[in-house]
């Protein structure tokens, strides 16, 4: 069994569009995740998908499931939630969501950076690492700062994952399909 939790940035900056990620980055992420989750679930029934959102806070929005209707319904309800960006809190919620699950575990953070709240991502990564959770990050470029890259690189290195920078919808789809279909780096 493979468990994947998407950790989705719903902070104010995701309200803007960039390149062909329009009308907003969040809407493009919702559309892309709907395509990707449908595809990976149709290819492999041994996958469970969960969801967490973060802004200045973080909370779970979808318990682990392979019910695509539930997943699509949850994605359709996603909206901008507020100021701040606390991906560390989001990662911790994702690991907690997989606490009782057996099998491989993976968290995929989708963000446009600007980390400024909550538990530092590299400290949350320690919990993921101890819980044997692979952490990948899909980073939408445009407003990423050096400090965001520092935290993302430390996290993906520690948790055996990958960081992929995207700027277009085709890149976002490709990145999410790739990361959702494979486990971490050997």
């Amino acid at each position: 069994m493979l468990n994947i939790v998407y950790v989705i940035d719903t902070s104010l900056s995701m309200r803007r569009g960039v390149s062909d990620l329009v009308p907003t980055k969040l809407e493009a992420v919702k559309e892309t995740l709907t395509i990707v989750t449908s595809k990976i679930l149709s290819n492999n029934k041994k996958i469970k998908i969960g969801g967490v959102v973060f802004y200045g806070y973080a909370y779970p929005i979808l318990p682990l499931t392979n019910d695509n209707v539930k997943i699509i319904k949850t994605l359709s309800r996603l909206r901008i939630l507020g100021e701040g960006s606390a991906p560390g809190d989001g990662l911790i919620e994702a690991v907690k969501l997989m606490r009782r699950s057996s099998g491989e575990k993976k968290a995929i953070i989708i963000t446009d950076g600007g980390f400024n709240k909550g538990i530092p991502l590299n400290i949350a990564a320690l919990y993921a690492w101890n819980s044997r959770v692979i952490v990948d990050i899909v980073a939408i470029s445009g407003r990423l700062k050096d400090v965001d890259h520092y935290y993302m690189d430390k996290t993906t290195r520690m948790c055996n994952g990958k960081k992929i920078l995207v700027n277009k919808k085709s890149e976002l789809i490709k990145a999410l399909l790739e990361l959702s279909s494979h486990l971490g780096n050997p």
Partner: protein
Amino acid sequence: MIDLVIAAEKSKYSRNELIHYFLNQLVDTLYKTPFIRVGFIVYCKYAVPLIDLSTEYRNLGEIYAHIPVLRGVPEPAKAIYEAVEMLFDLEDQLTLKKKIVLIASFIKEPSISLEDALEYASMNDTRVLIIRAPQKKTHWILAEYEKAPEGVHLRKNNIPDIINELLK
């Protein structure tokens, strides 16, 4: 099986080296004691779970040492709530007793009521052992804590007694 969650403060107010030493001593003893699962939380203004309840907690002291000193006013209540959640989430038919060890400086008054958190733990059949490890004299202290027979001040020479008390 005893399920034990250790919640250790790491702030500029706590004696972090002494806590690290205590954690190493504790892990050495716990590893020789059968039927114990340990979880680990580090906290300051937020509480970070680092190891979920398991029998693989050997590197707990190293993890504590690795974490940087966290900023802000310590909120021990957040650590208690996080610990209770962990004990609840991972409880199974093997669980016989649930315990939390809270290591705190109690130098700064927190904004979240520790008294309420302790009451919440108690309602979840969880015993909390409070250990104080402040950098300097405590200015704030929970009124109930003064009465609590289980509260102890961490010193190098009373660590064996604290561990014995914990394993009772």
